[in-house]
């Protein structure tokens, strides 16, 4: 807002115009203060909820991307087309509806840094078919241990040892 004792900003050296624009400028500063003071009333409860949900969703995704943690809920919704779903109990959801989720998961995984990629690869590649809880636990262990994974060969190495990923039958 323009100061009260100085020429209004943006109007250097100008005298009053036909419409007394200088007065109008000062009045506009008052109008601006009035509008700013009423900002809170213009945000509905629904809009507040949408904004808050959106922010927290994006923060959760960002945390996953940073490898800070893998939210438990994330593993529950990740599915890869053609590779089944982590939890066999929800297999029916991976039929037609799973494709978009899988595509989102692919997009998400491709943008992850190494630590999160490791976790996601373990969950999505090596441990497909294992229960969600089992995958989550092994992912946590793997992240904590610094395991490296080769998704193509479905093998992972740790401390010099190379281990083949367990098949579903072997694991069960």
């Amino acid at each position: 807002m323009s100061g009260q004792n100085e020429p209004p900003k943006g109007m250097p050296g100008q005298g009053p115009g036909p419409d007394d624009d200088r007065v109008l400028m000062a009045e506009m500063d008052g109008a601006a203060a009035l509008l700013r003071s009423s900002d809170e009333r213009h945000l509905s409860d629904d809009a507040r909820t949408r904004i808050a949900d959106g922010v927290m969703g994006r923060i959760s995704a960002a945390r996953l991307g940073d490898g800070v943690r893998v939210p438990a809920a994330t593993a529950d919704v990740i599915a890869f087309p053609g590779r089944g779903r982590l939890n066999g109990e929800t297999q029916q959801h991976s039929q037609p509806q799973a494709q978009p989720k899988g595509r989102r998961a692919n997009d998400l995984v491709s943008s992850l840094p190494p630590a999160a990629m490791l976790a996601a690869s373990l969950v999505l590649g090596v441990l497909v078919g294992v229960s969600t809880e089992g995958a989550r636990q092994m992912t946590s262990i793997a992240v904590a241990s610094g395991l490296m994974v080769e998704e193509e060969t479905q093998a992972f190495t740790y401390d010099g040892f190379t281990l083949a990923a367990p098949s579903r039958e072997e694991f069960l």
Partner: protein
Amino acid sequence: MSGAVALKNGVQSESDAELLRASVEGSEAAFATLMHRHMHVPFAASRRILGDATEAEDVAQDAIVRLWQQGEDLLSKPLNVPAWLRRVAVNLSIDRLRAGKRLDVRDDLPEVPVAPRQLRSLERADAAGRLQASLDELPDRQRVALTLFHIEEMSQRDVAEAMDITEDALESLLRRARKNLKSALADDWPGLVASFSRTPA
């Protein structure tokens, strides 16, 4: 996360700086409280610039996420959180306007954009509501110029740069916008001006 969670954790009365520090240290409740306390600020700023509530919600989200992302850096110096959010929202809104080339349309023609009969329907609204409604009715370029210069308190040079026009053109645009806003409010203007003096600083 919700305000209820924040309340449960007893962080509602903490200062912005305390909440931001707690957020950086991992408290989701603290960040939720900070978010709910100030989310109307980036929303309102963006809403006035873009003239679209849905888009303003997206901008508010962007601004708040940036607060979370940059929280640690922001702690290194005194920070006015609402002012920071407002500035980020303004910049993001300007980016959207420029990306969409929404300020290219000439708006020289309408001198009195709101007919008095439209204003009558707003008689029951409060002063701020009537003012906002009239501002919304201005052509885009006039609304944006008035908003950035008077409400967001940006310098004339910065506004001109944001709108990709000369400072002379901005002066002309602002004069026209102020005149149109006053004309649109017609008989309401004196009463509004009187109410300005009662507006809390």
